[in-house]
């Protein structure tokens, strides 16, 4: 199978990014919900935030690459009725917007005082916007709200994928796993 997408199948780059981001996003969401209630003397008190920020920034870079990849690759045809396709297109665009909003608010919280973000001690990504003391509190609220909202959104997305698989019995879910034929098709 090729790296690039074609008109009827996803390439390995898209598939890998999809599942990698799914796992990482759910992972740092859980980490985020868990870490805010940690005790000050917990050994994870600082480390948890560092890991959360580091993975979050790597996800932001990956999201930018994903957008470029998405725009320079064909998209496999969506299965469904015309209005289902229309909804699917906009829901997919919504994913990008949602991810971008959650990650950028996170970045702006961390850089609110004009200092860069350390990423796993490997390098520091600079603060691109001027310091604006106080925005960490306002944006902190939005970061949390958007993160919970996005979990609901991907829950809906997963539900739709399962509906395609079990109700419509098409290959929408399977082709995101690199399988482009249904068992039923072989009969």
């Amino acid at each position, binding site marked *: 199978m090729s790296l690039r997408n074609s008109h009827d199948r996803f390439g390995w780059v898209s598939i890998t990014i999809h599942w990698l981001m799914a796992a990482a996003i759910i992972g740092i969401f859980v980490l985020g919900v868990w870490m805010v209630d940690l*005790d*000050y*003397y917990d050994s994870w008190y600082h480390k948890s*935030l560092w890991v959360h920020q580091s993975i979050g920034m790597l996800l932001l870079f990956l999201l930018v690459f994903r957008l470029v990849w998405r725009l320079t690759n064909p998209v496999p045809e969506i299965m469904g009725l015309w209005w289902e396709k229309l909804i699917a297109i906009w829901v997919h665009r919504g994913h990008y917007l949602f991810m971008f909003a959650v990650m950028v608010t996170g970045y702006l*919280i*961390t*850089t*609110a*005082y004009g*200092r860069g973000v350390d990423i796993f001690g490997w390098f520091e990504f600079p603060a691109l916007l001027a310091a604006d*003391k*106080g925005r*960490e*509190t306002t944006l*902190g609220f939005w970061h949390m709200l958007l993160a919970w909202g996005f979990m609901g959104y991907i829950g809906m997305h997963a539900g739709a994928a399962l509906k395609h698989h079990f109700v419509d019995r098409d290959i929408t879910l399977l082709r995101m796993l690199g399988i482009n034929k249904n068992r039923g098709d072989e009969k």
Partner: protein
Amino acid sequence: MKLKLLLGTALLVLGISTSAMAEDYVIDKKGQHAVIQFKIAHLGYSWLIGRFNDFDGTFSYDEKNPSAAKINVTINTASVDSNHAARDKHLRSPDFFNVDNYPTSTFVSKSFKELGDGKAELTGTFTLNGVTRDISIDVKHVGHGPDPWGGYRRGFEGTTTLTLADWNIPFAPKLGPASAEVELYFSFEGVKQ
């Protein structure tokens, strides 16, 4: 007779108001010649120093009658600044200052007593996190006199120590035993009105 009375009253009112005005100062917020700072132990190994960037206040002080001195300060609790975005966000949250519920903290003086040698004791009512308690502040006269721009200024500094457990701060016990108390320091320069 009537005119005399009117004139007399007018003079009296004018006299009172000028004498009252003569001792009223507004804290120089515009020029930022005023500081409210807090200092608390971090783990018992070093100090964390932070401040409130936004507050307003007035005081009155008459050298001939110092025990009548008064001060009134209102602090915008959301302006807390310890020079660390994540910590300040935490300080504004319900774990500490709960700024959505308690956007302001106030101090209203009750008594002022000169102790000599430029020192004084100020007592008053401090409100923080919805808790109102009487506190005592050690005050020092810093200086006073005309400024180069045609005004008259007077400045004080003061310190007091608060016990976190008294002020409705849910996260306080988690900071550890070394951080049970916080030292407040202020320096106010007032411009005479």
